């Protein structure tokens, strides 16, 4: 096992995408120079983020107040494009990591590590390995799951389900964890753990979705850090945000003029707004639309982009990708059953899973009450965060101003929930089809379901006229929608266990 501690070079190691690898293998002499990316994100040019930062005193204050590491990390830097949101994010994160709660501090970080490991997010893992040791965690645990107490190990099952197929969580899973015995969890502890898991699964989505770079200054290495691996291939980074290059990414959207694309979207939004008044789809129609969207999300696979991560199928380790395997095994110390991944909610040829009716178990009515009861005050913080992200708007769309983006935000939020099988009775899923283009859907699906496969190409290929800060906004929406979906499933299971 190769631990990164030996070579804590500031320059990150980048994975090579399969395409480049093929090229490399053919001609061994070609050396791909490591691009020196600077700034907090590999997707967003440094100046975009930094510019925003220098103006912002508020961010510094927030970091001072709520950051556990005491410094401005890359996530915070990228998020600081939306300071309003950043505050509720940091506050809730600080609360679940540092404030009163049923779990001891090192456990919280270890759970964060376990959650991040499900998505092979080495950035978050490294961050929390440090924090874990700093809060007095037992270093031995970092050798892998077999070194931690059985009690923590028991979390594995719901970690796995929550990360990839939250709809499979049942009250039996909860019962198994809380039933009295040597390694049982109390309900408040479990809720705390679930909140942490959901938070870090979602944050992993954000990290990959926004192309967060590894922290530049790996501190005194403690031997447990993973190699700072960026999952973005050099060829992704080499194109350095050139829109021209986007034509490489695939035939269907490179051709469309991006400007007219934006206009078309605006047009569609306007039409939808007006349409709503006169044309009403029948109920059957609405149901079909949801099913259709659900089904369609099946075909939205990032297959058309040629970066697919080979790990998701670890049962067939390919000998060609030895470096990859090192990384995987390094991360897989913290996970069991690494082959378990997202599977489409609506799978063809399988018996129908019951749709989660959002109105029957809402965050506002039910989730909040339960979570707040068992882990006081986190409900308010999460509530504020969800509300914040849902209502956050600058009334702009790319170059246009004074636009009501409610519809767009709702479409994004509900589309994520749709992929997790949550249905809103009062939403017309036809809107999703109208508002979200295919490349965006691909991006959404990748970021929320298997974020580790996100590439810069995907990030660049949708909404090319939009500002980076707007794309970060999209990421925030995706992240929170995902977190809420996971929480809803987990909390519903806990409620069922209680009744």
């Amino acid at each position, binding site marked *: 096992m190769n631990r990164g501690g030996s070579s804590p070079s500031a320059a990150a190691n980048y994975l090579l995408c399969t395409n480049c690898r093929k090229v490399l293998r053919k001609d061994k002499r070609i050396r791909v120079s490591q691009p020196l990316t600077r700034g907090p994100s590999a997707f967003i040019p440094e100046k975009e983020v930094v510019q925003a930062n220098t103006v912002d005193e508020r961010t510094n204050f927030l970091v001072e107040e709520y950051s*556990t590491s*005491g410094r401005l990390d890359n996530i915070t830097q990228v998020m600081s494009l939306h300071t309003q949101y950043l505050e509720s994010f940091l506050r809730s994160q600080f609360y679940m990591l*540092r404030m009163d709660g049923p779990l001891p*501090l090192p456990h919280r970080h270890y759970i964060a590590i376990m959650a991040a490991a499900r998505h092979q997010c080495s950035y978050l893992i490294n961050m929390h390995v440090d924090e874990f040791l*700093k*809060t*007095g965690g037992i270093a031995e645990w970092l050798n892998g799951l077999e070194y931690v107490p059985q009690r923590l190990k028991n979390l594995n099952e719901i970690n796995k389900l929550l990360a990839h197929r939250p709809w499979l969580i049942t009250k039996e899973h909860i019962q198994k964890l809380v039933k009295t015995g040597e390694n049982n969890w109390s309900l408040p502890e479990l809720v705390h753990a679930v909140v942490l898991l959901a938070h870090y699964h979602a944050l992993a989505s954000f990290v990959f979705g926004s192309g967060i770079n590894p922290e530049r200054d790996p501190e005194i290495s403690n031997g447990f850090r993973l190699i700072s691996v960026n999952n973005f291939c050099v060829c992704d980074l080499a194109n350095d945000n050139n829109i021209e290059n986007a034509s490489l990414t695939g035939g269907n959207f490179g051709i469309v003029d991006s400007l007219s694309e934006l206009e078309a979207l605006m047009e569609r939004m306007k039409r939808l707004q007006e349409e*709503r008044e006169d044309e*009403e789809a*029948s*109920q*059957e129609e*609405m*149901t079909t639309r949801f099913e259709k969207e659900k089904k369609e999300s099946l075909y939205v696979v990032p297959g058309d982009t040629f970066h697919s991560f080979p790990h998701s199928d670890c049962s067939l380790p390919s000998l060609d990708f030895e470096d990859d395997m090192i990384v995987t095994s390094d991360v897989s110390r913290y996970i069991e059953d690494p082959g378990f991944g997202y599977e489409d909610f609506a799978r063809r040829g399988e018996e129908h899973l019951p749709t989660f*009716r959002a*109105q*029957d178990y809402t965050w*506002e*009515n*039910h989730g*909040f*009450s*339960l979570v707040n*009861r068992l882990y006081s005050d986190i409900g*308010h913080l999460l*509530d504020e965060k969800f509300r914040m992200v849902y209502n956050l708007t600058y009334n702009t769309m790319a170059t246009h101003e004074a636009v009501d983006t409610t519809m767009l935000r709702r479409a994004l939020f509900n589309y994520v929930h749709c992929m997790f099988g949550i249905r809103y*009775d*009062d939403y017309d899923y036809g809107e999703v089809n109208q508002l979200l283009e295919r490349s965006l859907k691909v991006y959404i699906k990748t970021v929320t379901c298997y974020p580790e496969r996100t590439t810069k190409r995907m990030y660049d290929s949708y909404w090319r006229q939009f500002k980076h800060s707007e794309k970060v906004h999209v990421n925030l929406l995706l992240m929170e929608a995902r977190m809420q979906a996971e929480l809803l499933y987990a909390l519903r299971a806990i*409620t069922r266990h*209680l*009744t």
Partner: protein
Amino acid sequence: MEKMSRVTTALGGSVLTGRTMHCHLDAPANAISVCRDAAQVVVAGRSIFKIYAIEEEQFVEKLNLRVGRKPSLNLSCADVVWHQMDENLLATAATNGVVVTWNLGRPSRNKQDQLFTEHKRTVNKVCFHPTEAHVLLSGSQDGFMKCFDLRRKDSVSTFSGQSESVRDVQFSIRDYFTFASTFENGNVQLWDIRRPDRCERMFTAHNGPVFCCDWHPEDRGWLATGGRDKMVKVWDMTTHRAKEVHCVQTIASVARVKWRPECRHHLATCSMMVDHNIYVWDVRRPFVPAAMFEEHRDVTTGIAWRHPHDPSFLLSGSKDSTLCQHLFRDASQPVERANPEGLCYGLFGDLAFAAKESLVATESGRKPYTGDRRHPIFFKRKLDPAEPFAGLASSALSVFEMEPGSGSMSWFVDTAERYALAGRPLAELCDHNAKVARELGRNQVAQTWTMLRIIYCSPGLVPATNLNHSVGKGSSCGLPLMNSFNLKDMAPGLGSETRLDRSKGDTRSDTVLLDSSATLITNEDNEETEGSDVPADYLLGDVEGEEDELYLLDPEHAHSEEPEYVLPQEAFPLRHEIVDTPPGPEHLQDKADSPHVSGSEADAASLVPMDSSFSLISVSHALYDSRLPPDFFSALVCDMLRFYAEQGDVQMAVSVLIVLGERVRKDIDEQTQEHWYTSYIDLLQRFCLWNVSNQVVKLSTSRAISCLNQASTTLHVNCSHCKRPMSSRGWICDRCHRCASMCAVCHHVVKGLFVWCQGCSHGGHLQHIMKWLEGSSHCPAGCGHLCEYS
């Protein structure tokens, strides 16, 4: 008018009868509503929409309104309401945002009447106007309220709450034009139905969503609201600003609230999560529900009083797919199970006692309280005026004041401070304590101490070997030297402040135990000093300098007959004293046995009673003569201790227990001892006698007590740079990554004991500073301060 209507219900033949019953529905219910005739109830849910007839013994399904091949989402109801004027008219709110009206008078199977699809989001609530036949109001998730005239195809007016979702809308019962709406953000708005442009009044009622509201059926200004913040509030809307008149705190978020008919102050609530019960509260008594219905197995989603003028029938629908009729007389009443009495001590010893009026009244004159033998302090009773809610929960609160003077506990404090518990031979301890007691005017106690001495300190019991021993090694010339040598040896290993203190030469009473353990060490090293004796050095506190050190060498501790005293040389952490060392009194026992110290005194004591042959003391003398072992008395002594403890003088019981140690300990069961110890320690701490209580803890032999000093020994520190708590380690700050405390001598981080000067705040490793200050009196940091250990 009020009276009239009540009479008509009774006269109209509709006297309600029924029993507590339930029926199973096919699916979870979301809401229920009762027909005007009180004989039918409609149940609506995601996949159920049925009308049941309420018969005397059971519910009978009357009509299924959910018809059609493929049930559409329009039938997935979030709310249902039955018109209170028209028995044929119903309205439902669908989760997809559609408002549907139903006309039961339609001849066809499908009773659906009208469809309003104006809301964009889920409709949370629908409400008919109480007197107008055609006016329907709806409130939706999209933040709008719409008023429909059923004679028209679309809404008459739209009200915008300027906020996210509307949770509830309710027409005022008395004001024709007014309705109230509640919002997700905690606001309540009052609207005039004629003015859709802006609300009449708005105020924040709850923290978080307000799920429900209900107008009082009789009192025109009262509105009850229930929120996610687990509160039910009653607002008086007649005043200029909405005034909160009552507030009930429940245990879960409040989903529905309904005033109870004919009971001005009663309302029923059910919760949205976790709690499945229905409560009926008297708002004037917000802490205990007046009644509780516990039939449901899952959350109750809808409640309705069966008849607007009958307070005894409550209907409810639940997620557990049952419809229930509850009878008020069958409700469980938590009040009945509540403890009717409360008792609390005030800061200055006052005692407050609250009890149900009825309970207090039966006791004639409340004499038992004042005259209770078990309370050493006397109270006089002062009656507070009766509680405002006389009719409701009439409890009487009595406050017993402490009479000035009588409650003085100065004797307790004095005794605690002056008693000697250890460190001297038993006889001396007894004498000293007897003297203390006598000076405080507690003659019985003094007498007890004297008797104890006589019982346990008879010279005849001293083992002969011991005598020889001490005689044989009488010389004590070399002692001071030996002692100082030992001290030097010990100091670095022990490293505790107490020892430092001692080396500076003043003794404090709380070092007694340390001293004796130190003695053990020296004795182990220096066998030849055994048996030597310096009688003068037993008075702690008076002793100074070398004399104290002499005391350290008190040879009696190392009797060979007590091998368990010998501690391993390498283990000197302070904890060991507490856990492993046998208690002080045992050392004392040995001292007491020493002929040199106690012999003469004991003789003197036993000489006195010889003359007065009938006194107790003479008895003890006689017993001594006949060589009765002290064990003979132990039963008696134990009884005596119990007597004192019963009397409330736990101080005496514990003091004697400590002083006598091994002699009586085994005769009193561990639990009683523990109980005494804890009570005494508690008392001491209340009087801020920390030193004494600590001494008692140390001297106690019971494991449970002696670990008291080992609990919560954590010291939390803040970083000196950023003022943040240092959560993980005491010496490095997580946030600013700086080491907080550096040793001024070696410039390394101090991870263990850190000592610093209070004058210049420099400091460092204990040993380093000690060593430094041996050679210099200036601060090692070079700040020029003259540091000093005190």
